[in-house]
């Protein structure tokens, strides 16, 4: 299977091809999904090296399940998000058990120094506020507002109804608005 000819091939077909030994199919699937998986892990965990581990583990589980993948059972992207979310939840629980307080890292970008400092402060504050949320709310917020999934997609990943998703995100948003509101001025939001 040539790498360049895969744009019209579905994830499911590629995964089954990989299950039969087609390594090019795995490269295409990596190209399509690894970035999103990694970014979701980063959004939830706020730590690059943990996100790397989770992303690699999630993709490894996909490779392992490929020979047994049944057509029409689930979307590959949804399945990957489910696995990634579960792996992130496990890590968050371990962190809390151990009492680890992870300071979220911020990626560097091509912005001027002032904007960069302000942006860095905002993102650090948001990460800390996200860290205070219950796990399910954090997961729902990350999937919906950081990874850009729709409410039905979030429901599919988390195994809950759309109404449950809306309830989780609504409560999470309220909590974040209150937590971050105390630092409104330093985050660069003026009084109305």
């Amino acid at each position, binding site marked *: 299977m040539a790498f360049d000819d895969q744009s019209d091939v579905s994830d499911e077909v590629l995964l089954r091809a990989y299950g039969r030994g087609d390594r090019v199919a795995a*490269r295409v699937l*990596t190209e399509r999904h*690894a970035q999103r998986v990694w970014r979701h892990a980063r959004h939830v965990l706020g730590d690059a090296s943990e996100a790397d581990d989770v*992303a690699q583990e999630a993709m*490894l589980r996909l*490779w392992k399940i490929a020979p047994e993948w049944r057509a029409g059972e689930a979307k590959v992207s949804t399945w990957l998000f489910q696995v990634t979310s579960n792996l992130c939840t496990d890590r968050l629980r371990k962190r809390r058990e151990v009492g680890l307080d992870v300071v979220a890292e911020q*990626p560097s970008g091509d912005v001027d120094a002032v904007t960069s400092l302000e942006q860095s402060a*905002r993102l650090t504050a948001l990460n800390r506020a996200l860290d205070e949320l219950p796990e399910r709310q954090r997961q729902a917020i990350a999937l919906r507002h*950081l990874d850009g999934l729709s409410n039905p997609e979030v429901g599919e990943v988390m195994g809950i109804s759309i109404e449950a998703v809306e309830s989780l995100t609504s409560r999470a948003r309220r909590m974040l608005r209150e937590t971050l509101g105390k630092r409104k001025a330093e985050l660069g939001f003026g009084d109305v």
Partner: protein
Amino acid sequence: MSDEKILTETELDALFRDMSAAGGDIPDSLVSRIVADADTLALDRQPKMDFGLSLSDHIKSWFQIPRLATLGIAATIGLWVGYAPPSNIVDFYPLGQESITVNDFLFSIDAILEEG
């Protein structure tokens, strides 16, 4: 009463957009490791030669191949004709030029068997 100590929905969405945009790109080294995992598993799944088959399994496998089966049958018939030919088979050797070596061999085998 105004919510001065609370972010507006718009302000919160702005934070989400900032964080989403600052997500960064997956490191190339991680992509390489993911692909390497896939390659390793794919290699592990390729069928290997199994040297643990029993002798009977090996012999059976020969007769599953049509040409070898034909060869086997031909060899069996050849041995049968050579050792105990049916009487209606014509001996193509010219008269008086029998294969002394073969007959001598066969006679000596008979002699050994008779002696016990």
